[in-house]
């Protein structure tokens, strides 16, 4: 039914992950920190891609999954669960939560779904900050530190994050090449029609929502172990929840490598501006978001690179092709 897909995205991705994994050997502490950040946001953007890219549902719930993951991981570790198990537990718990929440909010469409998904972030934050006996409320929570010297810990965190990236990427690849992905693309184009031709849209959408939730849950738990302290404002940040879709769109939503390219570009740009224009950091990122909407609506991967390299406007190239 479906044409054989090119193996190049997989090869490119394997090389990229391998390069990042070598960062602790070849580069300094600062670069390893950036590599962790890149891996984190790559995993988040790839996860978002399944619900936002393939299915076309404007989800802004990433920070809810990530934040719940932070707290479940932290609480499990405080209860004495080993770190690795705590991370898995966080992913599983967030998967269950997203299944229930998905069954509720995925009945909404368009603007209402967007608002509903943002509300999930707000509700999670409010519940966590008012449930003080368990979560420490606004004071936050200390998480047991990982054992080892700091460079070893960073290397471990980086490799675990990259493991999540690989899993999230494989989830994208498998979704892309299976019935699920085909159904999701149908839903993206016309949900009513997809329903008419026999696609169980509810089940497909919930599957996509859960897939987009478990990896952020794991990422949050690993992040909590790494930094050793979490609080509600940082864990359920509205900025994170919008940044992740922006990254996916920057690279190209709905493609395999788009979220990867977008996350790298965004994190590096952000790092550059944090370092040089601390006071104006937020405004510069805002300007980039605005520029993205106007000049790169399809993302970096959709650019016509050959036309740009030949220094000819795209329109001329298109005209020549047509004529």
């Amino acid at each position, binding site marked *: 039914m479906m044409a054989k897909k090119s193996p190049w995205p997989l090869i490119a991705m394997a090389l990229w992950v391998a390069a990042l994994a070598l960062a602790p050997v070849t580069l300094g502490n600062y670069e390893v920190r950036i590599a962790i950040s890149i891996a984190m946001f790559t995993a988040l953007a790839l996860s978002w891609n399944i619900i936002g890219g393939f299915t*076309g549902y404007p989800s802004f719930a990433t920070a809810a999954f990530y934040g719940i993951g932070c707290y479940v991981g932290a609480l499990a570790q405080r209860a004495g669960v080993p770190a690795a198990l705590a991370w898995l537990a966080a992913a599983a718990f967030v998967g269950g939560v997203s299944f229930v929440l998905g069954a509720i*909010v995925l009945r909404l469409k*368009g603007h209402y779904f967007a608002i509903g998904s943002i509300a999930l972030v707000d509700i999670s934050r*409010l519940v966590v900050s*008012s449930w003080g006996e368990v979560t420490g409320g606004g004071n936050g929570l200390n998480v047991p530190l990982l054992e080892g010297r700091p460079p070893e810990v960073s290397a471990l965190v980086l490799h675990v994050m990259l493991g999540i990236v690989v899993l999230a990427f494989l989830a994208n690849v498998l979704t892309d090449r299976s019935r699920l992905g085909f159904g999701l693309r149908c839903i993206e184009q016309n949900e009513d029609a997809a329903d008419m031709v026999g696609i169980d849209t509810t089940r497909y959408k919930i599957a996509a929502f859960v897939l987009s939730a478990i990896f952020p849950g794991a990422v949050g738990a690993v992040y909590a172990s790494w930094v050793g302290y979490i609080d509600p404002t940082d864990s359920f940040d509205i900025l994170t929840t919008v940044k992740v879709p922006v990254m996916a*769109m920057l690279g190209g939503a709905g493609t395999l490598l788009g979220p990867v390219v977008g996350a790298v570009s965004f994190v590096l740009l952000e790092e550059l501006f944090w370092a040089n224009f601390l006071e104006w950091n937020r405004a510069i990122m805002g*300007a980039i978001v*605005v520029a993205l909407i*106007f000049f790169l609506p399809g993302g970096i991967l959709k650019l016509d690179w050959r036309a740009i390299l030949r220094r000819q406007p795209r329109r001329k190239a298109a005209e020549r092709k047509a004529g």
Partner: protein
Amino acid sequence: MGFEQILANGIVLGTLYACIAIGFSLVWGVLNVINMLHGSFIVLGGYLTYFAWAYTGVSPVLVLPVVAALLFGLGYGLQYLFINKVVSAPVLTTLTLTFGLDMILYNLMTVYFTATPRRVSMEFGRVEFLGVVMPVDRLIGMGLALALTALLFVVLRTSRIGRAIVAVRMDREAAALMGIKVNHIYAVTFGIAALMAGAAGSVFAMVFPVTTNLSGVFLGKAFVICVIGGLGGVSGALVGGLALGIIESFAGVLIGPQNAITIGFVLMLVLLIVRPQGLVGVKGYE
């Protein structure tokens, strides 16, 4: 606190909420855009009022129209130059664009105004009526909020521009065929929304301290109120605002102020599922 007192607090808060949400509702209903800038518009209005009052001593009630006019200009410009270019794109695009613009505005405000909470303090004392005690500045705020809401209602109902806005909301193509300049009407609508947000900020600064950190809170309130009331126009925002104000006021006493905010969001999610058109909204504005 007695029942009447809690109810009165809720109603006062509710009118302020209505004023906060009305511009957001207008933009959503007419432009089909979720305006993430809304919270920052409110904070900007509050700050401008505060600084005008603090440096010149002019009464904030007189500053309000000036602030409103400035915000109208800002809103018109933003819509005409930026948002109009992508106004019919999917929600992901328009929401992200307004979020990007909000990041810029927010940054400008924190740099030039700093994030210190500021409040216009006017000592008017308080009044007591039927066992209910109410500070006079809150009553003035409530009066202003109601007056602004009523004014917008009249403008939408009777003026040429108001009828054009309603026409565009009903059917953009048909409105264009009737000779309405849709882009101009979009910009005017966004300008009016910014104006109402700025004026709401002015009113808010007279009653509560305002800081940039509140922009997200205001935006969240606008979400909740619009979903509770529905997008049918002025009445939806008024009903939604009053409902939220009264619910928060009672919930604050019964289960604590922190949980009261959660209740608002949970109520919104429930309503989204069972009645997406809101309490008084008209179906079909999705």
